[in-house]
């Protein structure tokens, strides 16, 4: 086991994959400035600073991915993805299909989002559901340091365009990573805490919120299972359904706004496939339909908190 921060885990994943595959390269706003060790190890050709122009960064990555390279791009903050939507959604997500399968687009787009730094809504907007709705893309949003490494490595090896969202609130947290080759397959959720009475389903920083709530509930004799989705597309429906069939209750928790969010997809999946097992309605706890504020207490209030999860579970249990 090695102990490190999320940033170090990302650096390690990039370094390992760049060493393994010479077609992997890193492009973005300051990647060569901030990740000097990668420049030293792999050269300026493969670690390239770019203009602050997300559209052409993404377009360059898409064109390169289709013709033999395996780019990882760092677009810094998730709202900046708006400038890269055409390249990611219309080109990377669609040109394989529209060409009858002639091209593939192995590329990873990294971006940070979420409460933690008080940067306000033009730097903090959890837009992961937008990309989950777009065909041809995969979406990953890790919660643990080990998963940041293992999922990033798997995303780089994937043959498809992957959106890799980094929760700002987790960016400098630390944790243990298994020694040796550590890969976490895309599309697999994980049970963070087993339980019997209710399933708490989450991803990114609200996984820890659910774990805290589960701890509190345990003290009151209520056994809650916590599922970390890890990959939002493809969604691990089997793991979600297996847990809900066991517990009969589900609360979905995420920081992104409720309307049209990942929670709606999870809730609908449960309703369609596990209705007979449900003992109570499926609940969602999510951010409000508001831009993310900068003010610290408002930003914290944006994110569902453990007390609210505990209260929701108690409501379900009547």
């Amino acid at each position, binding site marked *: 086991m090695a102990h490190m921060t999320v940033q170090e885990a990302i650096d390690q994943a990039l370094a390992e994959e760049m060493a393994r595959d010479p077609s992997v390269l890193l492009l973005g706003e300051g990647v060569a400035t901030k990740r000097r060790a990668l420049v030293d190890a792999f050269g300026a050709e493969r670690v390239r600073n770019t203009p602050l122009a997300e559209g052409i960064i993404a377009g*360059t990555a*898409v064109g*390169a991915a289709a013709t033999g390279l395996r780019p990882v791009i760092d677009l810094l903050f998730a709202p900046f993805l708006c400038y890269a939507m055409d*390249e990611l959604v219309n*080109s990377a997500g669609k040109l394989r299909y*529209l060409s*009858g399968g002639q*091209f593939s687009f192995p590329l990873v787009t990294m971006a940070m989002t979420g409460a933690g730094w008080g940067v306000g809504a033009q730097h903090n907007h959890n837009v992961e559901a937008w990309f989950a709705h777009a065909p041809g893309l995969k979406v990953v949003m890790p919660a643990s340091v080990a998963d940041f490494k293992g999922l990033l490595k798997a995303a780089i090896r994937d043959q498809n365009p992957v959106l890799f969202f980094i929760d700002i609130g987790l960016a400098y947290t630390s944790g243990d990573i298994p020694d040796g080759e550590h890969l976490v397959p895309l599309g697999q959720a994980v049970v963070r805490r087993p339980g019997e009475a209710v399933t708490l389903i989450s991803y990114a920083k609200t996984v820890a919120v659910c774990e805290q709530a589960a701890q509190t509930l345990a003290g009151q004799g209520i056994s809650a299972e916590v599922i970390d989705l890890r990959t939002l597309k493809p969604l691990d429906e089997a793991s979600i359904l297996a847990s809900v069939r066991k517990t009969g209750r589900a609360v979905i928790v995420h920081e992104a706004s409720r309307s049209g969010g990942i929670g709606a997809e999870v809730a609908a999946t449960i309703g369609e496939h596990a209705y007979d097992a449900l003992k109570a309605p499926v609940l969602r706890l999510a951010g409000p339909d508001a831009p993310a504020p900068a003010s610290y207490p408002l930003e914290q209030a944006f994110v569902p908190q453990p007390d609210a999860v505990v209260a929701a579970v108690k409501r379900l249990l009547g």
Partner: protein
Amino acid sequence: MSVNTYDGRVQDLLQTMLLIRAYEERAAALQAESGVPGTCTSVGQEASAVGVVAALGADDLILTNHRSAGHLLARGADPGRLLAEVMGRRAGYCKGKSGSLHISAKELGVILTSTIVGGELALATGVGLSQKMLKRPGVVVCFFGDGAACEGRFHESLNLAAVWQLPILYVCENNQWQAFVHRRETMLGDSIASWATPYGIDSATVDGNDVEQVRALATEALDSIRASGRPFLLETRTYRLRGHFEPDDQAYVDPDELAAWRARDPLPRLQARLLESGQLDARALSAMESDAQRRIDAAVAFAIDSPYPAIDELVTDVYA
């Protein structure tokens, strides 16, 4: 089907231009008469497409846009498979999933066609980066219009290609129309080539309705790119003689302007020049025209005979 390369015979250029004209006029007629999906034609722009493609080597790559039939046919695309694609048939280059708007033919090096205006400009830098980093010999040719030149991506693409010294030939086919808006409403001045200068990119402007001039300048531009590794912008001044797509009655087009450009139609111009200079006689021209029509007749029959894709194709090719 292999990539067409040209050995310099001007008659071959004419033959290809005749094929493109016959193909696009037939596609438009099929739309009008039989309800075949409409296309964005490049009628009037054949010299630009053929002149540039004729200057390419077999390793060079092409990125194009919704007005792509000329580029594809000049590169050696089979008109039957193109028309099958337009009609949504299984034998099309993209299994019928593209339709006319984003046809790619990887086997011909015509890749990543985007119908989002400016989309091809954003992707071209990536293809150029692959060519450079993987030390491949081919130059990347990116065809776009004056409409795309007014998109931010044009400027972002040129800037990055210049900074990273990418082997890209930008070809702006300035056909004066940006969908339903004349170019003079959307930009000051007349020159797009001059926009390359502040980015440190060499450029040239050519009469886009003269295939021999286009080929000559494209050849010079490609030689310059191969020698320097740096991008180049070629602006071909031409005109979209038909509407934005089929059907389009062009009621918004100034009839005097249209008439002036019809008088400069690249096909009659080239034919007259070749007949006058004795490089072609009337019988040979007539045989070339008949040959083009015969190929298009066969293409129509092929496309109509091709079945539609099976319904399970709806969800294939989404992920690799």
